[in-house]
């Protein structure tokens, strides 16, 4: 048995009787997701500038192509042809590892998110799962991979050997550690309700009501915490312009800077996709009679709305002060998360009794 085949057959696949993806299907799925995420991230930069423009009563990019739609292409070309400047005193290996990890971990988390319902019995009894890898512990996998994202920002900040970068890196590490707890706790409520860590099962159990109805507090906690984990305003202390120039990526230029940029936007997509999957019913339609619209479109639509909210928040709220950020994470989000777990657990236990 080939090693890759084995990984598909048993290592990553669980659930007895689930037919494994052939390596080719696996590769095609992975390619689609990676390309799709990269493209989406590129056009999110356009969307963000448009949203920012509208909020600040101006047009935003409108020169390249209709409505400035080709602006991302121009931006990418510019980044490609820029000179790749790097400080002479940098740590050569880690300076490269940082940006690569930023994109890698961001995309990897997307591997277990189901985009649509399973298509049963395509071909010889083969089930098509709409995720790259159907993991039994999908939720834990996401938490594990996103927790590794802390290294990318930290290594970038440390290896540049610059004070601003280092401060940005340290801030982001502290921030990510603090908010990871709150984010994980907010998800436990959903796990208690479904009794499963399998993202597909979590979505199908929202058939009658989305979990945002049953877990409104958890949704708010997750969204706040996840926003902090993406390092975006109002939680963008690791790159606060007024204080740290550009924080952890001050010394990066050209494509390496582009990778951090890409990582940030893919992270935003991933965070919104997780929120959609866990709280907004994933691929399920809002009302049953709209179910003729394919699940993927529902999923993408919901994610898009959430991303719009994320951008909206960025351009309307001022940045938090650092100590306020920490006390929000530890003294507000974390206790509320615990409260949510206790209440959910009690309700589930009483209903079972």
């Amino acid at each position, binding site marked *: 048995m080939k090693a890759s085949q084995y990984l598909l057959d*048993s290592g990553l696949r669980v659930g*007895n009787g689930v037919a494994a993806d052939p390596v080719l299907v696996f590769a095609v799925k992975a390619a689609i997701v990676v390309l799709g995420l990269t493209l989406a991230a590129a056009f999110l930069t356009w969307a963000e500038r448009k949203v920012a423009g509208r909020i600040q009563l101006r047009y935003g990019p409108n020169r390249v192509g209709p409505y400035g739609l080709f602006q991302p292409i121009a931006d990418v070309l510019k980044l490609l042809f820029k000179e790749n400047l790097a400080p002479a005193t940098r740590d050569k290996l880690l300076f490269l590892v940082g940006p690569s990890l930023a994109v890698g971990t961001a995309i990897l988390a997307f591997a277990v998110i189901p985009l649509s319902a399973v298509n049963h019995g395509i071909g010889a009894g083969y089930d098509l799962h709409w995720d790259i890898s159907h993991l039994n*512990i999908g939720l834990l996998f996401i938490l594990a991979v996103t927790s590794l994202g802390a290294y990318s920002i*930290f290594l970038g900040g440390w290896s540049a050997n610059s004070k601003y970068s280092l401060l940005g890196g340290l801030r982001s590490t502290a921030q990510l550690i603090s908010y990871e707890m709150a984010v994980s706790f907010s998800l436990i409520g959903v796990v208690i309700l479904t009794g499963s860590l399998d993202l597909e099962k979590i979505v199908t159990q929202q058939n009658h009501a989305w979990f945002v109805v049953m877990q409104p507090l958890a949704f708010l906690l997750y969204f706040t915490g996840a926003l902090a984990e993406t390092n975006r305003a109002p939680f963008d202390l690791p790159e606060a312009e007024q204080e740290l120039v550009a924080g952890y990526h001050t010394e990066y230029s050209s494509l390496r800077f582009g990778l951090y940029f890409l990582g940030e936007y893919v992270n935003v997509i991933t965070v919104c996709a997780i929120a959609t999957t866990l709280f907004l019913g994933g691929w399920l339609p809002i009302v049953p009679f709209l179910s003729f619209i394919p699940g993927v479109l529902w999923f993408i639509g919901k994610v898009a709305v959430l991303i719009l909210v994320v951008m909206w928040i960025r351009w309307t709220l001022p940045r938090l002060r650092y100590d306020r950020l920490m006390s929000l994470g530890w003294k507000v989000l974390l206790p509320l998360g615990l409260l949510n777990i206790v209440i959910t657990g009690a309700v589930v236990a009483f209903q079972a009794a």
Partner: protein
Amino acid sequence: MTALIIVVGILAVVGAVGVVLSTQPLYSALSLVFSIGMLAILYLILNAQLLFAVQLIVYAGAVMVLFVFIIALLNPKAEDRPILDVRAVVAFVAVITITAALFATAHNGITYSGSNFRGAVVGASHNDQDPAYTKHAFDFKPADVNSGQAGNVQTVGGQLFTVFLLPFEITSLLLLVAAIGAVYLTRRVPKTEVDT
């Protein structure tokens, strides 16, 4: 599959060696992260998915991030390379002996009996009906690994909250004590007027 295990295992060892041989503390810590990641992949191959996730979330994602954080905060200088002296030779011989002993034990198999306390747990993945089940660590087959439920969330959670409830609760108490101790040690000492 065996090839994959060997490759990942070798990478884990390379990471572990890097921890010892790096002169820069940060590189040592990052080698440890790498080694932990490779161990996590080994767990995944052995179908212990929960262990895989816990290994990454707790060790790579939380503990080691704090290590790295502190190293960057204190910014210690690069250390000298360890010198080869009598202690190093003694340690080397001891490590080789223990490793060889472990390999021998794993290869010869360990006998579990049905009433054995550990057998009840480990046996979850094996044939625990057999009163004296001899397990060779090196000759598992894919079917063996597939049928194993030992590493999944339900099994671990069930064991943790039934068989091992008391040790589990005591451990949590221990952590609480450690947390209170840490808070006490790092508290701000109020200024006294005695030491003028």
